[in-house]
């Protein structure tokens, strides 16, 4: 453990805002990329499924 207590961990000895904002922004951007890619794939599959089913009927 590099820190003595949770408070020390969060404050990071005055560098807290910097470290945590970096990790926060990065996690948001990374999670956002993951989410958008997975959603795009699901939507495309759904769209194609509807289209194929419609073509089958007609």
């Amino acid at each position, binding site marked *: 453990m590099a820190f003595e207590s949770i408070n020390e961990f969060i404050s990071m000895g005055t560098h807290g805002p910097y470290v945590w904002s*970096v990790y926060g*922004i*990065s996690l948001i951007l990374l999670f956002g990329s993951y989410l958008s890619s997975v959603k795009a*794939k699901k939507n495309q599959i759904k769209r194609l499924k509807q289209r194929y*089913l419609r073509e089958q009927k007609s």
Partner: protein
Amino acid sequence: MNWIWFHKLGSPKWFFQWANKWSKFAFVIGVLMLSIGIVWGLGFAPADYQQGNSFRIIYIHVPTAILAQSCYLGLGVAGLVSLVWRMKMAPVFIKAVAPLGAVMALIALLSGAIWGKPTWGAWWVWDARLTSVLILFLLYMGVIAIQNSLDDLQLADKAVAVISVVGLINLPIIKYSVEWWNTLHQPATFSVTEAPAMPMAMWLPLLLSTLGMYGFIAAVAMWRMQTEVLIREHRSNWVKKEILDNGI
């Protein structure tokens, strides 16, 4: 050297099914390694004796910077493959990876700037490394822009391949010129990762985060490529079979 695996990946159908197997694996391994690396780096690795705890930003900054450069290398190679071998999957790769590379470059820039504030007292300095990552980010935006601006698919693929290859050739020239410019202007006093002999306790979590980031990006890239394959090959029978039978 047996190149059959490479040519197999050139087939959209083969790639799609291959990616189904490997994307989840890459994602799980990637996220796992990334999480371990970050938690280790944040909580257990020692602080830098000069920079204190802001040094922990390195565990995000370096992996994303490395990935930003690797992705661009990938774009250039894919552009070359697309132009020379006319492989169908190459433009798909470019389209999928360009936004991811841009996000990596953006995170590298933001983390570098925020790291700079406690370290150098300024949010931004025009030093060689940050400036070249900025230019890299702008190169990515160019690739994305040209892709979204051309409606004709064949023309767009060709244009994007050309710009990727040109960019790759230019990248060493740009980096060299920025370094040269920097030695002219700055009394080079700081460097972002000035840790020539990084102790193992810092180096290992860094390695883990980097490898983890590779895995994460590989997985997300595979999904994006699969989506693009579905769009481009929606007329073919194997896609119909995949979706109607498996419902994926």
